[in-house]
């Protein structure tokens, strides 16, 4: 540890390291990973770093640098700075190799050591698996065999694994077992980029740094909670992948459950990675299992039909490239959950996630119970829709509190008003990209915003029976028009409880 770093604005600057990206010829590397590392350098969170990209494709160092430059120019949130690039580009390298070829790992090891020597790096390594999930276990095994990920603290060797981590409970357990044959849990960083978003992190600050909300954050005052993760996009050429995944695996099991666990967790004993993750895991373990025979009552499965989104005509899911014309894959899911613990007993959590919605938005809405006596008339109070605290995760990150207010005048008329906090206007700066935060955390060895093995298994333990019930009962998805807020059954899910979805 460099003592001069202590108490400086950049005291989160990690030790110099080499980042090795598997699947470096892919889209994620160009659009997210390289621009994230570039921005961390621009903002001086990283001082000395080298990047070695690897994949099956034959690419020269120069071609890799050119791709990286295009990625930064097109996708970095800041403006491109030539002088920063000239400092950054010489640290970019590419090494071709097959993921299951032992010799390729020896060559990779030699290349890494050569780069470390050239850049005077101390041997810290962060491996990023931006590859299909089918090769995660293979890569980790080969890394172990090549002696690239020894479980020692200095220099460190850590591995970031992209989602999806398994496709059901059995495969997630098997993958965890294979990973743990080579790596200790604190070397593994299962990434969910939602956790890197400022508002998700702010949810913890909001809940646990302010004294006024936590006393209300329970079944005594909360009527219900709605979590929405909506996208305007369809499958965007990934029909083949999505056919096997569906929105329940692609969004709910990871992103939405992470948001749910942060919203519902108990205060951790400290802001330490394991303390936070333990509390999140407890929430997932407390989810009341859905009776397979009643799955259609609690979970709505939908699929988009043709329609228009943001003013443009779009095809139905079954007409997309790579999809089955008779596909039963869900592009919409809505569900009613219960967290069976002391805090949330009896409070429904309604989750929905979908493609081809009217707008891209992710938010948590805490709906508080109404005042006990409708002093100003039931109709007026009903119009208010209750007090709602909405945490907007993306886009336009912020927090809104809905209240009822008297309309100026001689009579008592009540209108809904909001108190708003928006990141962009309050702080005047753009929040860093999620991948920036997460890469920095992984380099610092901070796993707070990454998913632990038992947490992943807990989420699959809840999700897998739903998939199985859909399969055995051959549940057909209900079609909804692209650009709408989903099928009628989703609205009915709440209407049956006398509630309705908030329009986010």
């Amino acid at each position, binding site marked *: 540890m460099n003592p001069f770093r202590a108490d400086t604005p950049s005291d989160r600057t990690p030790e110099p390291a080499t980042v090795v990206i598997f699947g470096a010829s892919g889209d994620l590397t160009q659009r997210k990973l390289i621009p994230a590392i570039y921005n961390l350098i621009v903002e001086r969170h990283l001082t000395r770093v080298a990047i070695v990209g690897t994949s099956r494709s034959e690419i020269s160092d120069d071609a890799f640098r050119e791709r990286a430059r295009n990625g930064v120019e097109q996708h970095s949130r800041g403006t491109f700075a030539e002088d920063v690039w000239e400092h950054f580009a010489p640290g970019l390298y590419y090494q071709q190799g097959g993921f299951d070829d032992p010799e390729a790992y020896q060559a990779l090891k030699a290349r890494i050591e050569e780069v470390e020597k050239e850049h005077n790096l101390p041997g810290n390594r962060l491996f990023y698996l931006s590859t299909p999930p089918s090769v995660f276990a293979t890569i980790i095994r080969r890394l172990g065999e090549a002696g690239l990920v020894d479980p020692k603290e200095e220099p460190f060797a850590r591995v970031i694994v992209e989602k999806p981590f398994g496709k059901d409970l059995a495969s997630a357990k098997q993958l965890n077992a294979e990973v743990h044959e080579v790596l200790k849990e604190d070397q593994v960083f299962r990434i969910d980029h939602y956790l890197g978003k400022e508002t998700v992190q702010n949810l913890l600050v909001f809940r646990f740094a302010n004294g006024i909300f936590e006393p209300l954050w329970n079944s005594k005052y909360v009527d219900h909670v709605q979590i929405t993760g909506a996208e305007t996009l369809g499958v965007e050429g990934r029909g083949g992948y999505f056919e096997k995944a569906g929105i329940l695996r692609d969004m709910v099991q990871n992103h939405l459950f992470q948001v749910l666990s942060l919203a519902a967790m108990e205060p951790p004993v400290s802001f330490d990675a394991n303390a936070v993750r333990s509390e999140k895991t407890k929430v997932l373990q407390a989810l009341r299992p859905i009776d397979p025979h009643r799955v259609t009552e609690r979970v709505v499965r939908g699929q988009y039909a043709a329609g228009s989104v943001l*003013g443009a005509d779009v095809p139905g899911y079954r007409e997309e490239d790579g999809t089955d014309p008779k596909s039963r894959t869900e592009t919409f899911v809505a569900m009613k959950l219960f967290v069976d613990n002391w805090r949330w007993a009896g409070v429904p959590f309604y989750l929905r996630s979908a493609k081809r919605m009217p707008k891209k938005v992710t938010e948590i809405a805490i709906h508080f119970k109404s005042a006990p006596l409708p002093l100003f008339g039931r109709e007026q109070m009903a119009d208010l829709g209750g007090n709602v605290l909405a945490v907007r995760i993306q886009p336009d990150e912020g927090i809104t509190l809905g209240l009822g207010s008297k309309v100026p005048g001689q009579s008592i008329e009540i209108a809904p008003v909001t108190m708003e906090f928006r990141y962009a206007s309050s702080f005047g700066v753009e929040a860093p990209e999620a991948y920036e935060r997460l890469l920095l955390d992984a380099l610092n060895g901070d796993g707070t915003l990454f998913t632990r093995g038992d947490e992943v298994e807990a989420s699959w333990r809840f999700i897998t029976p739903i998939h199985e019930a859909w399969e055995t009962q051959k549940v057909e998805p209900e079609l909804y028009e692209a650009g*709408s807020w989903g099928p009628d059954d989703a609205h009915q899910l709440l209407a049956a409880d006398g509630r309705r979805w908030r329009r986010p």
Partner: protein
Amino acid sequence: MTRTEDIRLESFSAGEHFAVDPDSIERELAALWRSAGKSTNGQQPVTRACLWNVVVHVEERDDREGVGSAEAMVEMVNAMPRYLAARALVLKTQSGDASLDAWISANCILSGDGGKLVCSEEITLLSKGAADRRLPSLVRALLVPAMPTAVVFDGVPDRDDPMVAALIRIADRIIVNVERSRWDAPLERASGLVDAVPAAAMDLGWLAGRHLRQEVAALFDPPRTEASVRSIDRIVVRAPKSKRWTARLLLGWFASVLGVHVSGGDGAWTDGRVKLIHEERDSEDLEVAISVPWDGCAVTVCAEHTGRVEVTDDVHVVHRPHEDTERAAFLARALTSRGQDDAFRRALAAAGRLT
């Protein structure tokens, strides 16, 4: 903030319209407000406010309900921030090859304390030809979260039109204007609409007549008694042709308040006790004459003029001024008060039967 952003923000808050891609409207608006948040160079601070989403349909296709109202509707939207903070979505529909274009602008007013400009956003969507079916999904994307939504039609919308049907589904409040309708029986249609949709509904002409109804109500305050009301035997509403449906609505209100079920036709209806009469007149003003025999066959007349209501009984002529003369003010009243909803619904139902 850069100079370019500075100028753009200034033009934006001055009401200038900027053309934007339909799929990047929110992004453009967010960027402009982010610039406003950073503004430090001595400009007047700018903030945005919104209590309602107000969707205004401006029909510009021949032979369609609501056509010919563009100027009045745009004027109403421009005046709205004086009465109500709202995001306005102006949907213009025209004939032609299918296309969809968008503009953004801001309507700003100086806040009460004179300290800052408070702006309401205005988004104009122009659809041509078959592109109108794409408007509802765009509207759904552009509604300010959790704020109620009003949809304003100049006329009585055709529920069978897919675009209209989709807009009605997202509305918490529907505002119609029976006076501008081209249907043969717009009151019946409006009544059918009100009964068929879950959203609350209101009529612009009805709101404009609020002062007249208040003065009529005041006539029967003490010392007059319920006996005076029960003795009413004749009500005549005189109106120009341009206000004939508002006149019928007013008669419907009388019928519903008095609890009479009249029949008849050709401008006169009765239940045998009370006679309701609709007469056409040349003057632009609406006039109500009420015969109250209990008071010695007095005839009291309330006439609405621009900015005032004139009340004439046997002895006196009283002029009462009122400030609300703009459509935007009526609209704001419709959105901030639900007190008149039931009276309107009953009046509309009764008026629909005055055929």
